[in-house]
């Protein structure tokens, strides 16, 4: 009896969902979908960390695959993905596909032998068809249990991090100009302080991932204060954490985040402000800050869930480089990695589907999705803002991945996060860097 009620409930909910989505058919993309074969009734399970709006968009996108092949895709998203997937993989409960938000963990799982290689053909395809293709291939290539390097992680859905969000209306009211160099950005921040405004909203609290926002700041500033080669050496720890280059970037970050005049609520509030609440200061009444540096996904956390960007209440500019240090236009980004954790013909077809421009366009049309797929039609982007981000991506002279994602899990999702939080709480730069380096030495 209870089961029957449940089915009824599910049906009722499903009808609501349909009513919500029916407005636009996301599968109707500029590029046509190729033949993927038929897999009627076959179930593909996907596990990931996307929830809420992202989950909705993911479900809409995979529904195109379901329509084309007859397969059934079941997605389960949880904020505790990192913990759950490890338990699932180790207990033979692997889903077909696991979406890792961080390459570090994917690498660990590959080493334990839980991932299925996608094959050289896929790697070659990605190198040829993604912008900066080889760097995406490298991001998804890990050593297996025997130490052989294989291509496991298919990058799909990228984020652009080097953005500063602001409210055009506030800039207009106060008579501020968009800065095009770091020097101008700092001068503008000082001007805001002189005017009695607060320039920045910064929040690094994020549950058991607290500190990642600060690592993004660090990485963006590394790219603006030292060469990309040094950045790569830093990621592999050939350049130690307590070297002068890294310490310098941390000090520059400190000039922003540990300056009571610069940060809304004072420097002490940085560690306790939820990263998703921080940008709300741009829109509060009266506005508690003027600028917010955060990745392309952040509009989803704005009070109207991103509508602000469409109606002109919010806009962004490129986090500018120093005019005095010649490093071009560096851009920091990240991407989720889709890995095969349980082989099946339908799952292989799904990875073929992700190579189709149509799959990228289906998600592009729904928002907050950036892609490096060269074949995807830029007109498919849902908004001019997303297009503008796509252009920042293509104007970049240097593109680097989120360093904390590339570092080993114990650092990139551990000591780096926690020590940057300690830094926000007043620990000095030298101690912070020494502690992270000590943690790294300990796992070598």
């Amino acid at each position, binding site marked *: 009896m*209870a*089961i029957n*009620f*449940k089915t009824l*409930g*599910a049906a*009722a*909910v499903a009808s*609501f*969902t349909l009513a*919500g989505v029916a407005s636009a058919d996301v599968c109707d993309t500029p590029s046509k979908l190729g033949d993927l074969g038929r897999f009627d*009734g*076959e*179930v593909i399970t996907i*596990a990931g960390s*996307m*929830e*809420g*709006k*992202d*989950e909705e968009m993911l479900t809409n996108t995979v529904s195109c695959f379901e329509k084309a092949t007859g397969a059934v895709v*079941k*997605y*389960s*998203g*949880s*904020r*505790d993905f990192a913990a*759950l997937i490890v*338990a*699932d993989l*180790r*207990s*033979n*409960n692997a889903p077909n596909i696991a979406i890792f938000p961080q390459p570090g963990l994917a690498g660990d799982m590959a080493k334990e032998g839980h991932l299925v290689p996608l094959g050289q053909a896929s790697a070659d395809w990605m190198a040829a068809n993604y912008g900066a293709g080889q760097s995406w291939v490298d991001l998804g290539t890990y050593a297996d249990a025997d130490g052989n390097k294989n291509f496991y992680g298919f990058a799909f859905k990228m984020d652009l991090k080097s953005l500063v969000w602001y409210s055009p*209306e506030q800039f207009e*009211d*106060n*008579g501020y100009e968009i800065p095009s160099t770091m020097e101008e950005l700092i001068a503008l921040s000082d001007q805001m302080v002189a*005017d*009695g*405004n607060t320039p920045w909203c910064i929040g690094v609290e994020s549950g058991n991932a607290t500190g990642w926002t600060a690592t993004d700041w660090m990485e963006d500033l590394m790219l603006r204060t030292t060469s990309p080669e040094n950045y790569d050496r830093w990621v592999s720890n050939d350049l130690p954490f307590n070297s002068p280059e890294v310490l310098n970037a941390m000090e520059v970050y400190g000039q922003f985040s540990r300056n009571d005049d610069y940060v809304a609520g004072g420097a002490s509030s940085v560690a306790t402000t*939820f990263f*998703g*609440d921080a940008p*709300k200061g741009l*829109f*509060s*009444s*009266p506005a508690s800050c003027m600028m917010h540096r955060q990745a392309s996904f952040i509009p*989803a*956390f704005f*009070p109207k*869930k991103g509508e602000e960007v469409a109606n002109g209440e919010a806009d962004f500019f490129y986090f500018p480089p120093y005019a005095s240090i010649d490093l071009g236009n560096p851009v920091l980004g990240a991407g989720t990695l889709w890995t095969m954790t349980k082989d*099946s013909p*339908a799952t292989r077809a799904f990875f073929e589907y992700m190579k189709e421009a149509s799959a990228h366009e289906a998600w592009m049309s729904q928002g907050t999705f950036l892609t490096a797929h060269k074949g995807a039609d830029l007109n498919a982007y849902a908004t001019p803002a997303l297009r503008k981000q796509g252009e920042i991506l293509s104007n970049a002279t240097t593109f680097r991945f989120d360093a904390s994602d590339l570092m080993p899990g114990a650092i990139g999702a551990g000591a780096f996060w926690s020590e940057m939080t300690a830094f926000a709480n007043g620990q000095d730069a030298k101690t912070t860097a020494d502690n992270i380096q000590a943690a790294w030495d300990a796992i070598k």
Partner: protein
Amino acid sequence: MVARSLRHVVLALIVFIWVVPFVALVTTSLRSETASKTSGFWTAFTPTELGHRFSTHEKGAAEKLTVMTGNIFERLNKDDPSFPVTGEVNSILFKGRVPDPENPDKTKLIRKLVPAGEVMDVRGGDFVFQENGDFTWTFPEETAPKPKKLDAFIDQDPVFGSDAYVEVLFDNKNVPNALISSFIVTIPATIIPITIAAFAAYAFAWMSFPGRDWLFVIVVSLMVVPTQLAFLPVLQGFSGIASWATQLNQWLTDCEVNDTCQVASKSFAGLWITHTAFGLPLAIYLLRNYIVGLPKELLQSARIDGANHLQIFTKLIVPLSVPALASFSIFQFLWVWNDLIVALYIGPNNAEDLVFPIRLQKQLGTFKDQLHLLNASAVISMIVPVIVFLSMQRYFIRGLLAGSVKGG
């Protein structure tokens, strides 16, 4: 006398501490999203000053004119009629650059709160507003002004609404589904352990068999095994059973793997088994201590009358143990109902089978900010345990004393 009133004060204090979060939860769930985000729940009952942004008119809506009139409340309430902004407009925050008197080449940003009735310069026109929200915007010559957003500070009258409840219960928030899933998990996960435990407790109390005391010590010592420790082996076990069942299913029905005959290793049944296994030691311990205290003479006379063990159990022990059974049911029900971590690791993970605590956690979701929805769902999830507790609470105190006071 003094001791007694002190006791009352302490009791009142404890009740107060426990009631405040509940009142906060219910109040917040009945307020508008903006109000609950910008002010504390205790401000909900009296007029409170809140900042609101309004735009003077729609983009492109203004024709050439010299005087524009409007009402701040109308502008604010055009989108969100369920929680109307009402009250009195105290002031508007004016911001703008004016020539700096001390430094002729530079401009200076001034900000001030302009009260009702005072003229301020907005986009070259004179802007005046009244406490009731009416404003007039006068321009020296005919213009088509661009809309302007202004911050108004309004003494907000208390306003409540059940929108959040409607949204979570009827607008695809999966809360009704989660309620049903939680019942599917909780009811068997309460009944199964208590049934097994009652039989076991009777055996431990009144049947003599070799090794009884040692066995009891082992059962009691199992109480200290934390559930979290066992997730991996338990999951491995379930996945082994599931793949075996899949093969059997395939052999019996001739279907293909990956098709419909795939048996999921994460299921409701897995949750029942896990909750049963980890609930049993405490249940056996509690019930055994209660049952052992029942009058020996009663059981002996039943024996003399020719009753066997099963008859004694069903006719005498169960009716006499209702307080202990009821109090353990409450324990187990509350524990399973509120359980998040076991359901997360072991329970089904497809969207329509998630239990309430996972659903609540997901509502925090990628967007930690839908506080009003979260609160409404939390209130709904609290109602069930409250009903269970109230309907069984008269047994609860007696049951709590089970084992500690001989004869119950």
